[in-house]
């Protein structure tokens, strides 16, 4: 079976695009082959800085001929039907169709569509130009006088096809003046010659001889192996970095590793600063001392050539650049050390956080008061929490964070430690950005938790207030991540918090800031207020509240939160967003989303931990037979109630009268509900949801019996009403635990 070998040789392809491009090339070509009727046994794509290559093994030499019969309208059918048939089958006139007959239908037309098999070579030559022209590069360019777009100028195309035993053919095609051929080129500096290639093994071997390692994974192995060995020889350890490794493998066709060093004086810098300086600017790896865990003054660089002097000039050059960069970093770090974090705070007043939500300075003010309120709820020292919140953003105006944004928080922590802040405070400065996502570290220290929560609640409430919510794939302010962070902080630390009340507090602080800095009109013109009922009165109500208690809003620990109707609307919406995020989290833990809905639907949910406990217990209940039958009984009761309530235009929600219960099954159910209610109250108060579910499941037998024995719509209207009230008692009892109507199945 013949193989196909394709190579697209160009100027340097950005490292970050190479792997994806190889995958795209493979799927585009193989899909087009299959579409054209060519099957294949296997395909593999490769990328280097200067070439994309594809090998497709086990192709037939031609596609099979196909014959298809398509039935058409009966003979003598209207003109319109015939025209449609011709169009659909590609026949030019109806005489080209055959006539067949059938005892039922009579005579009708049949079109025989025959497609001859085609040589694979022709097929490949046909599909390639289109694939090259429309290749999905993230960014592409034209060059010279041409119109072709490629990631960087494309220079040559190698395309050969043939069985292993014969000399493969060149598949000839042309794209914007570039003709496919049988040759390629070697390494840019070490073996730039043009040479002929036949098939994959030949291609790889010749590339190797011309100082090109085709396979990116092998280049990665070479770099990793070399770097590790070089480090070990020095008694050091490579600090591995998969992203960096992938990138440097995309910058070299013939990689080798050299070791450079810099003055030990730079080791006074935080390790993270050294590592980023060397990684971001120079794309080099750092080495650490295994005995101390700290960085050493050595780094590993990759080079694309085997230099004639063994690399000493290259090492010297790289060292020079590394030293220059580290000198800059050292200058920044030393000037940061001289400035107390506290003294940087005024600068935060001139950094706009968001046009509508004010400056970072205002945000810090809100964080201090919100975190102070959270502190006692998570057993954190209030004074220290307030201190940490106050300093949390101060490093944003440091020179080091200006250079390396991703070190925000960490630099603040180091500076705080250097400046003698309490260690827990320093730690909270670093941790308040956490968790970074679905799997990032979760702070566990109380002060860190308090500030981390305040940071996220403030952002969520603020953006909700100005109606900048995530939509579809757009979430420019990472609000989904913030909500997920809150959920993880609460659940993984097993926290009991009045989430809803805290969100109201956060919202109130945002709105009050907005009103005091941008005027009340700014608040009154918020998009949220334009919707539904939130005109006039609600706004007035809110401002009266703010005016009467402005100090309280910003600086005191909340008493019981009373929501204005505007706040109520915003927070309801935000809580619904939390419910959605929670479903995503719970799905990973195997908890059905409808169970979360069933608990949320009870309304007034304030405490995520309880909510999850309830949902978990509910999940357990619905796994046994009692639970499933109880759910069925509940649904039956609810359906009957709904229908009858609608018919009568009345609500049957009173207590049934015991004296009207005539049948045994009624009495049994009535007593069972009384018993269950009596048991549920203390269990729910103790948050023993498993116990509550158990108490509830005792209803299953009586409910089943009731539906077997009892005809609800009795002749006697009093008895009927009493029985309906009994049904509503089932509903009420169950609703103490969850809204079963939201549960599917």
């Amino acid at each position, binding site marked *: 079976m013949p193989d196909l070998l394709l190579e697209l040789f160009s100027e340097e392809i950005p490292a970050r695009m190479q792997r994806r491009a190889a995958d795209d090339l493979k799927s585009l070509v193989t899909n087009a082959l299959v579409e054209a009727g060519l099957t294949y046994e296997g395909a593999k794509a490769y990328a280097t800085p200067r070439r994309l290559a594809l090998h497709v093994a086990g192709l037939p030499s031609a596609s099979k001929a196909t014959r298809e019969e398509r039935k058409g309208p009966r003979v003598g059918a209207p003109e319109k039907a015939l025209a449609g048939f011709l169009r659909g089958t590609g026949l030019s006139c109806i005489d080209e169709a055959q006539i067949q007959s059938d005892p039922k239908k009579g005579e009708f037309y049949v079109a025989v569509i025959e497609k001859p098999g085609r040589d694979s070579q022709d097929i490949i030559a046909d599909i390639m130009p289109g694939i090259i022209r429309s290749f999905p590069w993230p960014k592409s360019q034209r060059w010279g006088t041409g119109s072709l777009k490629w990631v960087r100028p494309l220079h040559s195309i190698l395309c050969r096809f043939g069985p292993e035993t014969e000399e493969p053919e060149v598949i000839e095609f042309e794209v914007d003046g570039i003709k496919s051929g049988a040759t390629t080129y070697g390494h840019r500096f070490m073996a730039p010659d043009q040479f002929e290639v036949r098939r994959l093994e030949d291609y790889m071997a010749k590339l190797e001889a011309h100082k090109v390692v085709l396979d990116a994974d092998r280049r990665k192995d070479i770099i990793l192996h070399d770097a590790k060995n070089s480090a070990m020889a020095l008694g050091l350890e490579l600090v591995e970095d998969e992203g960096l490794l992938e990138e440097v493998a995309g910058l070299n066709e013939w990689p080798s590793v050299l070791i450079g060093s810099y003055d030990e004086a730079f080791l006074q810098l935080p390790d993270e600063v050294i590592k980023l300086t060397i990684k971001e600017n120079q794309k080099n790896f750092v080495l650490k001392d295994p005995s101390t865990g700290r960085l050493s003054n050595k780094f590993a660089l990759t080079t*694309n050539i085997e230099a004639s002097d063994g690399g000493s000039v290259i090492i010297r*050059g790289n060292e020079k*650049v590394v030293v220059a960069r580290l000198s800059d970093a050292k200058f920044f770090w030393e000037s940061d050390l001289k400035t107390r974090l506290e003294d940087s705070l005024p600068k935060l007043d001139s950094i706009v956080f968001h046009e509508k939500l004010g400056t970072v300075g205002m945000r810090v003010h809100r964080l201090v008061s919100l975190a102070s309120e959270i502190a006692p709820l998570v057993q954190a020292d209030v004074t220290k929490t307030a201190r940490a919140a106050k300093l949390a953003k101060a490093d944003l105006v440091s020179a080091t964070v200006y250079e390396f944004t991703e070190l925000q928080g960490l630099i603040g922590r180091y500076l705080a430690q250097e400046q003698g802040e309490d260690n827990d405070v320093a730690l909270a400065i670093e941790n308040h950005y956490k968790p970074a996502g679905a799997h990032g570290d979760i702070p566990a220290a109380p002060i860190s938790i308090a500030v981390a929560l305040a940071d996220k609640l403030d952002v969520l409430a603020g953006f909700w207030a100005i109606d900048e919510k995530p939509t579809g794939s757009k979430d420019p302010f990472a609000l989904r991540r913030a909500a997920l962070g809150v959920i993880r902080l609460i659940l993984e630390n097993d926290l009991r918090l009045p989430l809803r009340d805290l969100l109201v507090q956060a919202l109130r602080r945002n709105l009050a800031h907005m009103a005091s800095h941008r005027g009340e009109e700014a608040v009154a013109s918020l998009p949220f207020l334009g919707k539904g009922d939130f005109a006039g009165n609600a706004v007035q109500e809110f401002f009266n509240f703010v005016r009467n208690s402005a100090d309280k809003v910003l600086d005191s620990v909340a008493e019981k939160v009373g929501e204005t109707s505007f706040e109520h609307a915003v927070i309801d919406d935000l809580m619904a967003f939390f419910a959605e995020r929670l479903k995503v989290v719970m799905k990973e833990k195997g908890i059905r989303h409808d169970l979360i809905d069933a608990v949320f639907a009870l309304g007034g949910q304030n405490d995520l931990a309880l909510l999850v406990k309830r949902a978990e217990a509910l999940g357990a209940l619905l796994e046994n037979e009692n639970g499933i039958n109880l759910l069925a009984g509940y649904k039956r009761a609810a359906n009957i109630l709904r229908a009858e309530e609608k018919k009568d235009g009345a609500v049957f929600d009173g207590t049934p009268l015991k004296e009207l219960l005539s049948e045994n099954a009624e009495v049994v159910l009535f007593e069972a509900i009384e018993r269950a209610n009596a048991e549920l109250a203390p269990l729910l108060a103790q948050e023993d949801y498993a116990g509550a579910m158990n108490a509830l499941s005792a209803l299953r037998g009586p409910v089943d019996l009731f539906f077997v024995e009892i005809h609800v719509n009795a002749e006697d209207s009093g008895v009927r009403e009493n029985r309906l009230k009994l049904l509503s008692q089932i509903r009420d009892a169950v609703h103490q635990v969850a809204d079963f109507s939201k549960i599917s199945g």
Partner: protein
Amino acid sequence: MTLDAVSANNRATTPAYMDPTKSFQGLLLTLQHFWADKGCAILQPYDMEVGAGTFHPATTLRALGPRPWKAAYVQSCRRPTDGRYGENPNRLQHYYQFQVILKPSPENLQELYLESLRAIGIDTALHDVRFVEDDWESPTLGAWGLGWECWCDGMEVSQFTYFQQVAGFECKPVSGELTYGLERLAMYVQGVDNVYDLNFNGREGEDKITYGDVFLQAEQEFSRHNFEYADTEMLFRHFKDHEDECKRLLAFSEKAKDEAGDGLHKVVLPAYDQVNKASHVFNLLDARGVISVTERQSYILRVRELAKACGTAFLETQWGGKEPVSK
């Protein structure tokens, strides 16, 4: 003879004080010579303050339209915010770029570039030269292109760009632009760590003139000027004046075009000068720290609008390809 042998040979015949590895001016002259050999017109720096060699009309405007063009020149660049009072070993508010523009970009542009490195003493068998992704975008010129920063042993020594758009117009044909950071390259080939220690004229002893001898005082004085003394009120006024003048000239140019009846704009290059002036004034205001973050964006947009208007008008001139030139 191999290319390396040619350049080695060239070096052997030039006097030591012109050696690009020993003399700043030698480096500069070697590059001029090299690109003169490749058919470029060797221009002199544009006679006004610009932030980069790209702003020279020989690049910005000539990259527009269908006409072929080859030029190379040294351009002094002013970046007021980069001033460090002469105290930083490699940051300057005034420095040189060597700029090459080839339109259309030739097939072997990368090879030509590497050849030019060899000509100034960078042996590619000893040094690790790499093309690392770096897309270029100039918000003030409404321009972008794709290319690389060129690394020599981990140090960025040049920018290499295929222009895709200038002044909001597609470049057809595409120009290839090379920008060499001359001070950085010279520091590298001379093996010097402080820019002010560069040997400028390649002489030794009493005859030696260093980069510091030429520029240190200027760096100190201009840093003071840019950060402390420049009259901001005057600058705000000038920005507006240049903006107005650019618009006025373009309007006049438009009118002259219609009056002459030949469809050709008549006063585009003078209008474009005003764009460069406005742009430099903006950079000074930025250095003086009197432009807020939000204002900043609007100033950039205002300069871009002017640049775009000039680009549009340039396409309706003879150089812009509106009518064929008889040779």
